[in-house]
């Protein structure tokens, strides 16, 4: 009986593959590509960034189609470091706020612009050809008195084929979608100075 169960399990694994049974656990490298610094030039400004805690822990289990293997995307853990790096590259003086922002804090540290980034949506579409990933964020921009001066939505997309056949393919595709979002976000902030 035990032997039969073991053989059945082994057969199932052989037939479907581990990914089919257990899914893909996708952690992006969380680092920007070399292209980013070529496309985003730093501007001379002091800007602060605040990320609500839920952003850093966001996980998506959207598998993209009913027949696709289960997928778990660790979006927040990669987006946080990428946003920090993007702001480091985008502004001459970058401050990361790890505490709830208040007008007093902004005034105390001479912060004239604060960006608060929230996740809006994460889309995954998987077809027999490949994968289409999009991350949407919404950024609220505050002045030194914590008065909202702007609010905008950024989207980063990466679509490519046959990525599941490559080692690191889904991870890099996720990284690219996040990076494109960070790029749009930083460039938008630079543009509305």
């Amino acid at each position, binding site marked *: 009986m035990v032997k039969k169960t073991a053989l059945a399990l082994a057969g199932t694994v*052989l037939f479907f593959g*581990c990914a089919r049974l*257990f899914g893909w656990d996708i952690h992006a490298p969380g680092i920007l590509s070399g292209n980013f610094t070529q496309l985003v030039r730093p501007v001379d400004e002091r800007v602060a960034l605040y990320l609500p805690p839920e952003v850093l822990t966001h996980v998506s289990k959207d598998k*993209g189609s009913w027949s696709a293997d289960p997928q778990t995307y660790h979006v927040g853990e990669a987006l946080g470091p990428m946003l920090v790096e993007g702001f480091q590259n985008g502004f001459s003086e970058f401050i990361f706020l*790890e505490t709830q922002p208040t007008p007093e804090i902004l005034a105390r540290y001479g912060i004239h612009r604060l960006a608060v980034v929230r996740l809006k949506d994460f889309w995954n579409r998987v077809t027999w050809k490949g994968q289409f990933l999009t991350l949407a964020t*919404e950024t609220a921009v505050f002045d030194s008195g914590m008065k909202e001066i702007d609010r905008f939505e950024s*989207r980063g*997309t990466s679509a*490519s084929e046959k990525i599941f056949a490559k080692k690191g393919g889904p991870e890099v595709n996720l990284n690219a979608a996040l990076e494109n979002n960070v790029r749009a976000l930083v460039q938008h902030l630079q543009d509305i100075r």
Partner: protein
Amino acid sequence: MRKRKLFDRLAMTVFLLTFIFPSNTFAGEIIEETHTQVIVREHPKTGQPYVSIVSSEGPVPADSFTGQRQKFSRPDYRMLDPKVKAKDIPYNGPYSDRRKVYVLAATLATVGTAGGVAGILAAPAATGAGAAGGAGAYLAGAGAVAGTATAASVYATTGSKKNNFIHRSESKEAKETI
């Protein structure tokens, strides 16, 4: 004489105000009210330092990126091109967790000796099959991938056409709050 009296009154006023509002309440009060401190942290992936403002109450809080201090090479998105083979682009970043394969192996091993051997032998083969056939497993889906990236945008930039993948970066003013 009148000037002297005026000066004395002014001095007295300043003296009294100093008692009512101690000097540190002007500059220092703000610092105390914010209950924050400035620290320098290192980026978890690049090691580049940045300024961080944290709460000053209690010990310095743990880094928001604790547990992510792994150094990877910067990704090269050419590896997303289906015509480029994986071995052509070096990649040292994370990839789909093989731990689950070992969990399966361990599960099989606990079932029985024969099962354990079969499971351990089967696991790498199955992973390979899963990886190679992964894209083929996704039979459902509407439309070609390239055909979906047509949304209008304010600040849009599309990836290079010489590559067989699409990258889009866009941003627009938000009309509704989240």
